[in-house]
């Protein structure tokens, strides 16, 4: 099962409206992505919490429908 990058981006932006999202399709197979997500909402949160926020935004797809999403999160000024 694959997901397209635009769908991933829209789910993240739904949960984190200010987020800047960059997604690379690593193998061009719609199944292995790397995402960079920059949002003010991450301020003061641990990396684990930041990633959990993105996983929550993906509503359970991560680890299922979405097999591989490398994730890097940061705040705008970082």
């Amino acid at each position, binding site marked *: 099962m694959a997901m397209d990058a635009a769908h991933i981006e829209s789910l993240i932006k739904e949960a984190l409206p200010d987020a800047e999202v960059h997604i690379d399709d690593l193998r061009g197979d719609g199944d292995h992505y790397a995402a960079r997500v920059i949002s003010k909402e991450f301020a003061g949160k641990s*990396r*684990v919490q930041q*990633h*959990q926020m993105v*996983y929550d935004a993906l509503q*359970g797809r*991560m*680890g*299922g429908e979405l097999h*591989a999403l*490398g*994730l*890097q999160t940061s705040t705008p000024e970082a």
Partner: protein
Amino acid sequence: MSDNPVFAKIQSEIDENPVVLFMKGNPMFPQCGFSAAVVGALTQMQVKFKGIDVLQDGEIREGIKAFSNWPTIPQLYIKGEFVGGCDIVKEMYEAGELQKIFDDKGIDYKSA
């Protein structure tokens, strides 16, 4: 926290072993690139850790995701604390933050 019986099993693993990696495959033969990357970092640092192969135990495989509120494997625990998955461990290793956690928690490792 929950009455899920597998949680007690997971809790005792992370209580009894200072460094625990829930992974696919075993440390000698990781079955997934993400698990292999974390094993690589720990091996590089010569940290002693217990690898738990979730492919051998379906209950732990599903249970650990709920336990940590984390959807993917691998998952690294240091002194009972969830540190992160592959991306976070890699980032921390490269930034020298993983080394700092081992220092703080009194776990032996070899600095590069």
